[in-house]
């Protein structure tokens, strides 16, 4: 089971208590009525969906109820760090980043294991 560190509860808790809540650090336009349709689509619908390091919002919905931000590696699924909502985008500590890269090279995919077994 994946453990996620909640910055409000200050401890690692089971992923079952959390919900994903989309990409983080998307600022709402100051005057949303003044922007063009293209700008609105960019703000409202379009997401980067990056492979690797992404910044996401998560919510400890079955715990303290708080939203917070997380840096997560979408290849290995590992959480690199979490921090409170409202803080600017935090740099991922170098050690965590290297650990994630090392993990990425040893991630078992379905093709590598089950695929061959067939």
């Amino acid at each position, binding site marked *: *089971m994946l453990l996620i560190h909640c910055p409000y*509860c200050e*401890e690692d808790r*089971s992923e*079952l*208590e959390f919900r994903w809540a989309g990409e983080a650090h998307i600022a709402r336009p100051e005057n949303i009525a003044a922007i063009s349709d293209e700008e609105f689509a960019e703000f409202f619908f379009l997401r980067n969906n990056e492979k690797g390091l992404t910044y996401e919002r998560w919510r400890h919905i*079955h*715990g*303290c109820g*708080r939203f917070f931000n997380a840096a997560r590696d979408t290849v290995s699924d590992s959480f690199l760090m979490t921090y409170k909502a409202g803080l600017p985008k935090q740099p991922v500590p170098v050690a965590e980043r290297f650990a994630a890269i090392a993990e990425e090279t040893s991630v078992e995919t379905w093709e590598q294991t089950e695929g061959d077994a067939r």
Partner: protein
Amino acid sequence: MAELATRSLPLSGVHGGSAIVRLEPAAPATRISLRVRAEDVPALSSALGVDLPMKPKTSVYANGRTALWLGPDEWLVIDEGESGLMTAAANSGALHSATDVSHRNTAILVSGAGAASAINGGCPQDLSLDAFPVGACSRTLFGKVEVVLLRTAEDAFRMEVWRSFSDYAFGLLSEGARDAAL
């Protein structure tokens, strides 16, 4: 004279458990769901007669009332009697939000040597005494339902659950109690 409705608990009369776990419905209690900003916490604490804990996963008991930390500005306050928690909060003179949830929740008392194992049958939290000591409390999941867990003694817990989910919670606890005794 109009006949008054008689109040019955959603789990009244049920009993269960195993050789090492005892399950019983808790007596009726008064409860409020309380939201308070940090600067107004002292005013609410003195109005309620119990200090609202500021540390995650902790509770404070005083004057028959238990205040459980649920989030950075959120508490569940339980009074085992029929006392006026709402009135006390309203008289605090400080900005807050209090909702009477006395009848939304009911509680199951889980005790005995296998109490933690029975709960862990459906709850992912670490219930060892180091991680979850006496007085620790947390909102968490039990199977498919959300519950608030409070450790009242080394081998006793109070599980607060929404009343419509209480049958499910009791059933799952009964299975956990059986498994704990194996």
